[in-house]
């Protein structure tokens, strides 16, 4: 499904809606270029799950953990491009006891679970001041149901 987002506030609100269909052990892939709004969307999801603290870019730390109503693992694989990630220890976190929100998942594609909710954020005409086109799609049946659920509340 396609959602057009016109401002940072709307991106936060969309995160709030996503939070309503997400649960423990879910995996969300966030795809979009630098500055598209991935971290902002994560902030919205975290707010929706009752977390009021700081949601910052995990580019450097690779992972932030937020103690929301359910535990959130916020990953960012941006700076791992071109590397062997087999030793990252991702299995310690994914689909264990928290919600995984993953920026730049394409970098670690072969190590990540095949089933996930896919959120693609696109700029319009490379203009950062314009709206964003957000496509939410599913990989796997479980997530297909979530897309339908989201369609119902959007």
């Amino acid at each position: 499904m396609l959602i057009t987002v016109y401002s940072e506030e709307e991106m936060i609100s969309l995160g709030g809606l996503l939070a309503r269909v997400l649960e423990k052990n879910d995996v969300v892939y966030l795809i979009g270029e630098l500055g598209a709004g991935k971290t902002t969307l994560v902030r919205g999801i975290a707010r929706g799950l009752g977390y009021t603290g700081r949601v910052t870019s995990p580019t450097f730390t690779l992972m932030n953990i937020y103690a929301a109503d359910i535990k959130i693992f916020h990953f960012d694989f941006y700076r791992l491009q071109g590397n062997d990630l087999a030793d990252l220890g991702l299995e310690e976190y994914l689909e264990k006891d928290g919600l995984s929100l993953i920026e730049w998942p394409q970098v670690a594609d072969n190590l990540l679970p095949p089933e996930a909710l896919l959120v693609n954020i696109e700029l319009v005409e490379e203009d950062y001041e314009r709206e964003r086109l957000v496509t939410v799609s599913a990989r796997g049946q479980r997530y297909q149901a979530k897309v339908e659920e989201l369609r119902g509340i959007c």
Partner: protein
Amino acid sequence: MKDILILGIETSCDETAAAVVKNGREILSNIINSQINIHSQFGGVVPEVASRKHIENIAVVVDAAFREAGLTYSDIDAVAVTNRPGLIGALLVGLSFAKSFAYALQRPLLAVNHLEGHIYANCLDHSDIELPAICLVVSGGHTSLLYMSSIGEYELIGQTRDDAAGEAFDKVARFLGLGYPGGPAIQKAAEKGKSGKVVLPRVYLDRNDFEFSFSGLKTASMNEWNKLKRKGMADVNDLAAEFQAALVEVLVEKTIQAAAKHKVRSVLMAGGVAANQELRNLMKNRGQELGLAVYYPSLSLCTDNAAMIAGNAYISYIRGDFAPLNVNAYPGLLSL
């Protein structure tokens, strides 16, 4: 009084580092296993998150630190190690190594906060810093303002709400095709350009607090670059100069404000971005205008190293503030 020799170990992120420091002042060795050449080809840091590289490096790096200092293991009085904040897997390699080393030698273990280490780097270069002070810690992963009442006593008064300053440097440099690491790449381009030809925002958020936000500046820079390219007017040097000026101005003004509010007479800078010449110059100039003493470490002590860890640990050593052998590693900034 007997000289105190401390071995420092730092593995909180990408660098495996070890150093020996005498009496918290004199660096006898400072070894860093830098991977910067390999990083360049990818346009990003290759983190040794995996910890595998840290495991491969650590014994070699520690040995090199002893060799360069001309010491044997039993010469040291304590083992210091970074146990927060950082990548948990990476921290654990250094911590486990340090624990084993301390246990085998029957020497005390000292746990050091990485950010405090960065700030202490100033004390390795300067012995006359008047405290209290305001400290600006700026690197790839941190943008924090701290009130430092004495060495080891800090209060966090502000942080970034989104991207760290060094992260903004790296990402914008990459977007502009200037290469990696972003800080030096932008500084070099900026020297050939002129700020003010294009205009980027100075994001101060609330003027009354000490919070930072660099995500908007990053996006504005990329947007401006796209627009200039479309018009065929793209001058990468001018844009780099404006980006650097915008970022540095906010860092400096917030720091100066914090110094005024807390009525301190010293400002300390630390972390990789503190190596930026524009930041050093502007902070120094603004400090002079206002009668503030401005300090920053020598370039080699700005980036991650273990000398700052061994140095900072001396304070704990003197106080007898030793860490138990079951001390843990913590990824977050909490409880600085």
